[in-house]
């Protein structure tokens, strides 16, 4: 099943905490059930996006890596 991406956020090149801050800002604009895709290069973001998902209750649907780029797919709770 392919996930319908509602919005994309390019956080490549940003370091902690900006990928998370920008993700939170982007998620504010989504409606419940809509999906955000985030690209990041911050190596700490793998643990951070999982933690942010647990703290906020917005499910992390997908977490993957392609070379040095991390991809996170979050669904707004």
């Amino acid at each position, binding site marked *: 099943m392919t996930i319908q991406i509602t919005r994309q956020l390019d956080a490549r*090149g*940003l*370091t*902690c*905490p*900006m990928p*998370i*801050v920008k*993700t*939170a*800002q982007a998620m*504010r604009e989504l409606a*419940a059930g809509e999906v955000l895709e985030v690209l990041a290069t911050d190596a700490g973001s793998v643990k951070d996006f999982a933690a*942010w998902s647990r*703290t*906020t*209750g*917005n499910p992390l649907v997908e977490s993957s890596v392609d070379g040095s780029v991390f991809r996170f797919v979050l669904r707004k*709770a």
Partner: protein
Amino acid sequence: MIGTIDAPAPGAPIARPATVDDHATAGADRVKELVIVNWSGDLDRIWPVLILSSTAAASGIKTRVFVTFWGLLAFVRDDVRITGENWMQRMLAAMNRPGIDHVKLGKMNFLGMGPWMMHRLARRYHVASPRELLEAAQAMGVEFIPCQMTMDLLGLKASDLVDGMGEPAGAATAIELMTEANASLFI
């Protein structure tokens, strides 16, 4: 100078937001709270204060930063160079330039070489500057509460501070906030 701000009546309860903040996330039973006491005006402490507070607010946590002593000088507006009402307060500001772009390192300051190198490294590795982080923290809804006694001691007026600061308050407010919060830090 005392009384530049409309202080709440003695004994009045602390003003708390009546509604759950818009960044509070669904699913949580109660919005978690974090309180940071920002005492230091050092770059290497202001940085984590702003990183942690903006991240907490971005995580749906109601975040308040009680800004006191040297910390408050970092929250002086850009266009205010010298603060204070008497020569001692003004001299303190002259020796310790206020403002978020002028905070010094707590160690390895070396007459400004340390902060200069730190800012250059931050730019090279795309680390957000304290100014960017302050803007992000405020955009995420972090509440910065200036310490009234520090304002009196250093001769700071509300108009000397950056826009968006909360109502000045004292130690009892800080204690209530800290004891009610899920976590509190003194930095």
